[in-house]
C-alpha cells in the first residue's frame, strides 16, 4: 500500500489530515485494508460508529465491484482510493484502470421477489446507492473508471 497524505493548516486549529490517498492491489484479500483506510478517514472526519460502518460497507461493495466487473478477475490491476474529509461530508474517490463499467447495465434487484427468484447480482451497486448520499460513476475510456461517493455527516 502506498500512502500519501496532504496536511493543511487550519485557522487556529492543529494540523489536520484533510485528504489522503492509498493504492491497493485489486484483490479480495485487501478488502479489509481498503475498508480500514476509509474507516479511518470517516473517523477523522468526526463520523459516528454507524456512519463509519456505512462508509466501510460502501467502499467494500465498490471495490468488490471494480474487481468483479472492471478487472474481471483478481490481481489484474490496482485500485486508488482517495478520501477527502470536509466539515460536513466525506468524499471517497476510487480509480481503476479496468474495462469501462456501465452502472446502467446492472439491473436493480427486485427486493420484493421470493426466495427462488431473488437475484444474486446487483446488490453491491444497490447498497452503495442506499448507503451513500451521492454515487457517481464516470468511465474514462481506456484510462479506466472513476467512482465518487459522498456521505454527509449526520445533521449536516
Amino acid at each position, binding site marked *: 500500500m502506498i500512502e500519501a497524505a496532504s496536511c493543511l493548516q487550519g485557522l487556529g486549529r492543529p494540523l489536520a489530515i484533510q485528504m489522503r490517498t492509498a493504492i491497493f492491489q485489486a484483490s479480495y484479500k485487501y478488502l479489509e485494508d481498503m475498508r480500514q483506510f476509509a474507516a479511518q478517514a470517516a473517523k477523522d472526519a468526526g463520523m459516528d*460508529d454507524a456512519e463509519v460502518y456505512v462508509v466501510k460497507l460502501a467502499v467494500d461493495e465498490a471495490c468488490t465491484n471494480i474487481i468483479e466487473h472492471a478487472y474481471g478477475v483478481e490481481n489484474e490491476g490496482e485500485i486508488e482510493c482517495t478520501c477527502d474529509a470536509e466539515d460536513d461530508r466525506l468524499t471517497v474517490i476510487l480509480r481503476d484502470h479496468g474495462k469501462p463499467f456501465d452502472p446502467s447495465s446492472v439491473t436493480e434487484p427486485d427486493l420484493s421477489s421470493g*426466495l427462488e427468484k431473488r437475484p444474486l447480482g446487483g446488490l453491491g451497486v444497490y*447498497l452503495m446507492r442506499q448507503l451513500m448520499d451521492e454515487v457517481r460513476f464516470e468511465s474514462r475510456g481506456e484510462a479506466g473508471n472513476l467512482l465518487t461517493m459522498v456521505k454527509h455527516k449526520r445533521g449536516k
Partner: protein
Amino acid sequence: MEITTQRYKHCDLIGVKGRVDSYTAPQLNEAIEAVNKAGRYKIVLDLSGLEYMSSAGFRALLVGQRNCRRYNRGEIVLAAVPKRIYEAIELTGFTPLFKIFDNVTAAVGSF
C-alpha cells in the same frame, strides 16, 4: 473469519465470528454445504460474534437458504444478528427471507 459447527438433535449450529466479505464468504458457503452434505438442512447461524458482513455474505445466506428449503422442512434461521449487520440485511430486503431470533437458545428451540 472463524466458523464453528456443532450438531444438535434437531438442527446444526454454525457460529460465524469476525468479518464476512468477498474474500471470506466462500468459507461460509462451504460450511453450509458441509452440513447439507451430511444430509442435514436445518441450520441456526449464530451471528453474535460477527463484526462485519458485505453483500457477498448476504449472497451466501441466500444460496444456503435456497438449498436448505429444497428439502423437507429445511431452513436456515439467524440468531443474535448485530445491529449494523441487521440494518444492512434489511436494506437489501433479505429480512422476509429469514426467521431472525434474539438468541441462539430461541433459534435452536424453534426446530
